[in-house]
């Protein structure tokens, strides 16, 4: 039995960090993730963990310190948001290509221009090509559960990649909700000790990190990195299953909610998935066959599995809380549509950009999407496939 509690998403992450007791945490505060290092530094000050907490002068330095300590052989965590993740951008690639399984709590917030502090996936979507595994969380419970699993995934010998665990800024990071925590002893046993095969502070086998890589080898190293990302898929599934056996909460690449017999479906990630579940239930009561695919793993992208899950629906809306300016739809939409292309009878697809800069998403908005999809299923002309939800034109 777990421990019944009520915590904000930020408290949940800080609590997971406390239970794991990592070796090093370099961090620089930024809204809305500031509370994570704030709470954690209290645990350090109180002696509840023996983590080395490194205060730095910027997020670029925070990630650089993460790289140094993880390369040395120390289990390392950090947290950031928005411009903080953007300032880390250069070194995110160094962490991934050096195969350093750093764990980062990303509290999703809009990027500046105009300045905004609220929920938006522009920060992590901007880092989607950096080589980090990305896990998204519907609520505080999933942020906590995903953060605990991240160590097992990233540190697995077949993977050795950094992992960012994302949740929506303010909506879940600052919202207090019920949560079931796992006993610390169980968390510690599940995560285990960090025993990297190669690390810089091993005097018996010296290694170099970050040397110049000429055209003779660079491409092979990228290919190996891709292989690690592919390997992550199997590890994510086995860790999700093992976590379920411990906690009762099982995790897959995505949650297929009432999707089995659905005629139309929405694909969405993070907190809006919870709102969509309420809408699915209400519309199912009215006999409408609607379903939801809540994407949990965005990197690696579980393309084949998504195509299989959506192969029988007639129309799909893919929701993006980010404008990527491709002018052909949001980033999640583009990838979902790509994998549906190979199906013999692919569903109609519509891209909905929503919730930018914290614009609230209500059940009536989700319901309007399902009604539109049902109309398309019944033969209505699909019309514009690239839409904005709830925007004033």
């Amino acid at each position: 039995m777990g421990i019944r509690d009520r915590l904000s998403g930020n408290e949940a992450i800080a609590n997971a960090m406390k239970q794991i007791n990592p070796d090093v945490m370099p961090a620089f505060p930024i809204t809305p993730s500031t509370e994570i290092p704030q709470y954690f530094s209290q645990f350090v000050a109180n002696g509840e963990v023996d983590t080395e907490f490194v205060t730095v002068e910027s997020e670029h330095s925070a990630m650089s310190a993460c790289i140094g300590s993880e390369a040395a052989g120390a289990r390392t965590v950090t947290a950031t948001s928005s411009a903080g993740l953007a300032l880390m951008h250069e070194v995110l690639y160094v962490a991934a290509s050096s195969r350093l399984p750093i764990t980062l709590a990303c509290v999703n917030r809009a990027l500046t221009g105009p300045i905004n502090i609220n929920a938006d996936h522009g920060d992590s979507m901007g880092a989607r090509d950096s080589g980090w595994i990305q896990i998204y969380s519907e609520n505080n419970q999933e942020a906590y559960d995903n953060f605990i699993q991240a160590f097992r995934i990233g540190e697995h010998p077949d993977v050795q990649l950094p992992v960012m665990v994302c949740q929506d800024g303010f909506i879940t990071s600052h919202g207090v909700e019920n949560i079931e925590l796992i006993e610390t002893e169980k968390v510690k046993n599940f995560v285990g000790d960090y025993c990297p095969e190669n690390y810089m502070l091993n005097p018996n086998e010296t290694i170099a990190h970050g040397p110049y890589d000429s055209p003779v080898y660079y491409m092979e190293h990228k290919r190996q990195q891709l292989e690690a990302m592919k390997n992550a898929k199997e590890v994510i599934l086995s860790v999700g299953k093992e976590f379920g056996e411990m906690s009762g909460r099982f995790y897959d690449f995505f949650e297929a909610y009432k999707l089995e017999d659905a005629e139309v479906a929405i694909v969405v990630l993070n907190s809006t998935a919870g709102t969509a579940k309420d809408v699915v239930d209400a519309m199912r009561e009215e006999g409408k066959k609607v379903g939801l695919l809540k994407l949990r793993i965005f990197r690696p992208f579980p393309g084949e599995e998504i195509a299989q899950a959506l192969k029988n629906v007639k129309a799909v809306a893919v929701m993006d809380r980010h404008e990527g300016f491709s002018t052909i739809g949001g980033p999640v939409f583009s990838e979902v549509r790509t994998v549906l292309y190979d199906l013999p009878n692919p569903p109609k697809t519509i891209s909905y950009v929503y919730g930018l800069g914290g614009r609230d998403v209500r059940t009536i908005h989700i319901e309007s999407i399902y009604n539109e999809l049902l109309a398309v299923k019944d033969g209505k002309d699909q019309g514009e496939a690239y839409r904005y939800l709830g925007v004033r034109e």
Partner: protein
Amino acid sequence: MSNLTEIRWHGRGGQGAKTASLLLADAAFNTGNYVQGFPEYGPERMGAPITAYNRISSAPLRVHSNIYEPDFVVVVDETLLSTVDVTAGLKAEGAIIINTPKSVDEIKSKIRGYSGRMFTIDARKISEETLGRNFPNTPMLGAVVKVSGVMEEKAFLDAMEGSFKHKFATKPEVISGNMAALKEAMQEVAK
């Protein structure tokens, strides 16, 4: 069926409406409910209008939007009545609770288009008498629990005493004042 109660708080930055919503979530959690307590964040300025929310239910809560059709509205600062549409979406079978020294009859004219129940409470007076300072959020918390009946009163007071003991571990002298503020508000608002 779940018995969902949705509450919207209107206050000004610095008055503790956010803290009150988190305390209510705490108390509802401690009495066995599923809870949400969350503020709507904007630029954080002392005195600017702010909104905070509570959902309390016997079933798990999944929706992650603000509350547009609340069962109850709590107005921590009377001056908001002329600038914020505090009764927007408020259910007719619900109620609004306003912090003011005025009576319901005196303040009625400021709340147009709402036919439901109205309550006033002088949270400032109660706070100054029990706590020696103007912390309106504690009396308003007692008032909303009394009016909404969202929790059994004794269970609420026991849960709050536990919360205050935890929150004020380093200054236990303020616990009795806070408890008195809650109790007095629960009596006064019902009048």
